[in-house]
């Protein structure tokens, strides 16, 4: 596996008595979209500001592209693009003039990329308009174009779909996935929007009160939750009694239409086929048996609730 493009180790950031980040450790792999998910005030923006060298961690270390952000910020940020909190521009300049201005800061190569980037984010037709006349969605897209000026290996986006309408969110999602899948860039997105993270990200970390409470691939995270089977058969009452007796089953409920919801114990190795075999061996005719995994929302709420109780 390639070296992580972002590595945070034991990052803590305090403001007086308040701990905004508490021993945060995570890695972001190249060519992956990483979601940093947490409720408002969980420390997402603080971590992003630390990642980008805009704020200094109280303790811990952050490397971006293999460079320590505190010691070698210029090298670390040379191919990093970002939107922090919200995209800010000079409203009295046009979209094109804004990009040309930032391109001057990035370097000569960046100026030649301006027309292509405006086209890529779908703003070429409005590039001559003043940014003060842009909608939030257009400013977000212009923000992505600005973030791409340095041809970044990694994009860091803080709540990028805040305030966008559903069409804007969908367009933005397509744009971000194209940056990952077509360009092979890594994208780090912070958000409190579960649906957005679930649709865009490959990996994620969930943060609450400054602490990372879990991290990994989206699929693994969801799979680690409680497993449930939906079962339909010719004799729900007998099936319920049978399944309740199995040590690998933690709970069974029967709905009004006779469908059984079978909750497998979290540490159980029981498989769908195993449950099916036991039902058939008992002489029951199984007409439907399908798994139902937790949604990200259920996993998120469960994990945040558990962390809160702890």
């Amino acid at each position, binding site marked *: 596996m390639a070296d992580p493009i972002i590595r945070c180790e034991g990052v803590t950031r305090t403001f007086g008595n308040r701990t905004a980040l508490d021993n945060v450790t995570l890695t972001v792999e190249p060519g992956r979209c990483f979601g940093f998910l947490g409720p408002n005030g969980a420390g997402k923006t603080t971590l992003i500001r630390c990642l*980008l060298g805009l704020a200094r961690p109280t303790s811990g270390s952050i490397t971006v592209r293999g460079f320590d952000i505190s010691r070698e910020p210029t090298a670390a940020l040379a191919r990093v693009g*970002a939107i*922090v909190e919200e995209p800010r521009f000079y409203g009295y*300049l046009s979209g094109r*003039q804004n990009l*040309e*201005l930032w391109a001057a*800061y*990035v370097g000569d190569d960046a100026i030649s990329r301006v027309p292509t980037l405006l086209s890529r984010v779908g703003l070429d037709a409005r590039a001559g308009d003043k940014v003060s006349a842009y909608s939030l969605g257009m400013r977000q897209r212009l923000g992505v174009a*600005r973030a791409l000026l340095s041809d970044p290996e990694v994009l860091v986006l803080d709540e990028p779909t805040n305030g966008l309408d559903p069409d804007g969110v969908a367009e933005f999602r397509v744009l971000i996935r194209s940056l990952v899948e077509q360009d092979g860039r890594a994208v780090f997105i912070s958000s409190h929007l579960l649906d957005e993270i679930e649709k865009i990200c490959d990996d994620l970390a969930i943060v609450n009160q400054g602490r990372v409470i879990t991290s990994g691939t989206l699929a693994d995270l969801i799979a680690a939750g409680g497993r449930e089977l939906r079962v339909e058969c010719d004799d729900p009452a007998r099936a319920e009694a049978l399944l309740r007796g199995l040590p690998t089953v933690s709970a069974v409920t029967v709905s009004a239409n006779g469908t059984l919801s079978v909750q497998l114990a979290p540490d159980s190795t029981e498989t769908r086929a195993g449950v099916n075999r036991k039902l058939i061996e008992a002489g029951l005719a199984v007409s439907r048996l399908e798994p139902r995994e937790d949604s990200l929302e259920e996993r998120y709420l469960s994990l945040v609730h558990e962390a809160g109780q702890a």
Partner: protein
Amino acid sequence: MIAVARADLRRMLARRGLVLASVLVPVAIVLVLAAVLMFLHTRNAVEHPIVGGSSFFSFVSIIGIISVVFGTVIGAIFGAEDVASGTLRYILLTGFSRLRLFLTRIPVLAIVAIAVALPAFVLLLIGALILPHAGEPSVTASEVGRLLLSLVLNVGIYALIAYGIGVAIRSTGGAIAVALGLNLIGISLFNLITLAVPGVKPWLLDSALTRVSDGGDTSIAIAIVALIVWPSVFLAIGLVRALRTEA
């Protein structure tokens, strides 16, 4: 750095309202003065024989005051805008350092602040040369040079002071208020010190500006040092804040 300076210059000039006001208000004052004097001259040339010449050119002091005010506003905006508008963090993310950013903008600001004051000065000079001024001495080259130096120094130095204040205060409105207050009232208050300590007078900004452009019997070396020290102090305060501020 030249590409950045050029881009920043274009950005400042794109603030058309501010730039046009800075150019047109002094120009309008010159035109109104010329129109009034010509009107009086046309009605009664005996009572009002002089319109142009040195008398007309002496109005450069009014142009100077107006241009210093606009230079101060431009300097304060230039210093405070990026933090106030949230664009600073995006500049820093390009890898352009705070120090380079701070230093690159000093010549850009000086160019803009002085450039917007020049059209009124040129118009005033043209008026002094072409408007009737029978019996009145014409404007000399040394007088033009002296007053141009005075205008450039006043506008440039007060703009740089305002820039330092803008960077330090980080709020555009607050920076404009403080810089204008300091320029219009605060520095004059320093003159009160001279009542108690007369030896301080050559070190005051107004005295140094007058000494360099208009001459006098105090030390020219002290005046030049004072003209360097005054903006440097405010720029240093701004730089310290710029290097420490989280974007």
